[in-house]
C-alpha cells in the first residue's frame, strides 16, 4: 500500500477538527497532547479511526508522545507503519 504522508495528515486534521476539537484545526506541528487539544480518550478514538481507515492495528506501546505528539508525527508514524507492514517490517 502506498499512501502519501500528506493525505494521512489531512485525514487526521479533518478528524481532529470535526470530532475532537470542536472545529479547531491544529497546525501539523502543534502540540496535541500536553496542550490538551486532544485528551487521552480523544487520542484513543483517533487511533481507532486510523486503524479502521487503514485496516491496520496500532500496537498500544507505540502510542507515545514521540509518535503521537503532533499531527505531523502521527502522519509520519502511520506512513512508516503502512510502508513497513506492506514490506513485512516492524514499524518502530
Amino acid at each position, binding site marked *: 500500500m502506498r499512501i502519501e504522508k500528506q493525505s494521512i495528515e489531512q485525514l487526521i486534521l479533518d478528524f481532529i477538527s470535526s470530532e475532537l476539537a*470542536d472545529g479547531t484545526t491544529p497546525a501539523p506541528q502543534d502540540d496535541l497532547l*500536553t496542550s490538551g487539544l486532544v485528551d*487521552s*480518550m480523544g487520542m*484513543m478514538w483517533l487511533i481507532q479511526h486510523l486503524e479502521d481507515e487503514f485496516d491496520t492495528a496500532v500496537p*498500544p506501546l507505540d502510542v*507515545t508522545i514521540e509518535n503521537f505528539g503532533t499531527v505531523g508525527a502521527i502522519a509520519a508514524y502511520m506512513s512508516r507503519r503502512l510502508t513497513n507492514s506492506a514490506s513485512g517490517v516492524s514499524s518502530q
Partner: protein
Amino acid sequence: MEFGWSTDQKELRAAVIEFAQNELSAGSRDDDSTGSFPRDKWEKCGAFGIQGLHMPEQYSGSPARDLVTSLYAMDALGYACADNGLTFALNAQMWTVQLPILLFGSEYQKERFLPAMCRGEFIGAHAVTEEHAGSDVYSMHTRAVRCDGGYRLTGRKCYVTCAPIANLALVFAITDPEKGKWGLSVFIVETNSDGCERGPVVEKMGLRTAPFGDLILTDCFVPESNRLGPEGAGLTVSSNALEYERCCILVSQLGAMERQLEQSIEYAKTREQFGRPIGKFQAVSHRLVDMKLRLETSRLLLYQAAWRKQQGENASLDSALVKLHLSESFVASGLDSIRTMGGLGYTSVAEIERSLRDAIGGVLYAGTNDIQRNNAARAMGIR
C-alpha cells in the same frame, strides 16, 4: 449470533461451583466481621487454577481460557462463593495486575511474577489513586527519578486493594513532568524493597475480606528491569488496563446477584403472611422480576463487552456501560433482597445485608459511576 455455552464451558462452571461451595464458603461471615483476609482460600484458588484461568500455560501450568470463558468461570465463582471480598480481590489481581504484565511485560517480568501469582503464592496490587488524585487520576504526584540501574520512586498511593498484603504492586509514577499525563510510567514494585512500606488495613464498609490501604514509597529503588513497558507508556497501559478492569472486575458480582435472587425467590415462596406466601403479593413478585431484569441485562452487557474485547474490537463504551449498570444493579438488588426478607434480611445472621455493603464500593472503584457516565457520553459523541 450464538448465546449458548459449550459443554466444556458448562463443565468448567460446574467444577468451579463445586470447588467454591466445598472450599470457599465456610467462615465468610466471621472473616467479614473481623475484616480478615482468607489467605488459605486464596491459596486454594491458586491450586484450583482460578488466578491462572486466562494466563498462558507456560505461566499457569494449564492451557489459557479465552476471555469470555474465564469470565464465565469467575461468574460461577461469584455465584458459589459467599465471600464477595475474596472474589473481588481475585478479580482485581487477575485483570489489573496479571493481565497488564502479560500484555506489556518483558519475558523476565512474566517469568518472575506470573507463575507465583497464578499459584496463589504472590499477591499483586494496582496502585494508581493518591489522596489528591482520585477521579482526576493523572494529576498524581508520585515521582520516579532515573538513577544508576533504575529509578527512585517517591509518593503515596491510597485505597489500593490488597496493598497491606501485596508482594508486588504496579505503581504509576511520573517520569517526565513536562509531558503531563504522557510522561507517566509504570513500575513493578516489590514490596520488600527498601523504601517501600505497606500501610495498615484501612477499615471500610464492605468487601472487608479484601484489605485495602496505602502504599508508601520513599526514595524506593526499582531496577530498570521492573519498568513495565517503555518510559512514558503509563497512559497507554492505564487506558488499556482500565478498559479491561471496567469490563471484567465486577463479573463475580453477576454470580452473587444470581445467588441473591435465588435466595429471595425461595424466601418469597416459603415465608407466609396473611395466610399466604409473600410471593403472592404483587409488590413482592414485581420486585423479584426487577431483580431478574437487572441480572439479565447486566449479564448481556458484560458478555457482549467481553466478546468485543476478545475480537480485538474497541470496547470502551461497552466497558463503561458494564461497570455502570452492573454496579448499580448490584446495589439496587441488594436493597431489594433485604426488603423481600424483611427484618431477617437486615440481620447479619442471614448473610444478606453483607452483599449490600459489598455492592456500594462498586459505584466507586475502577472510576466512579459519574466518570463512567462522562466517558459514555463522550463515546456517544456528546461533548
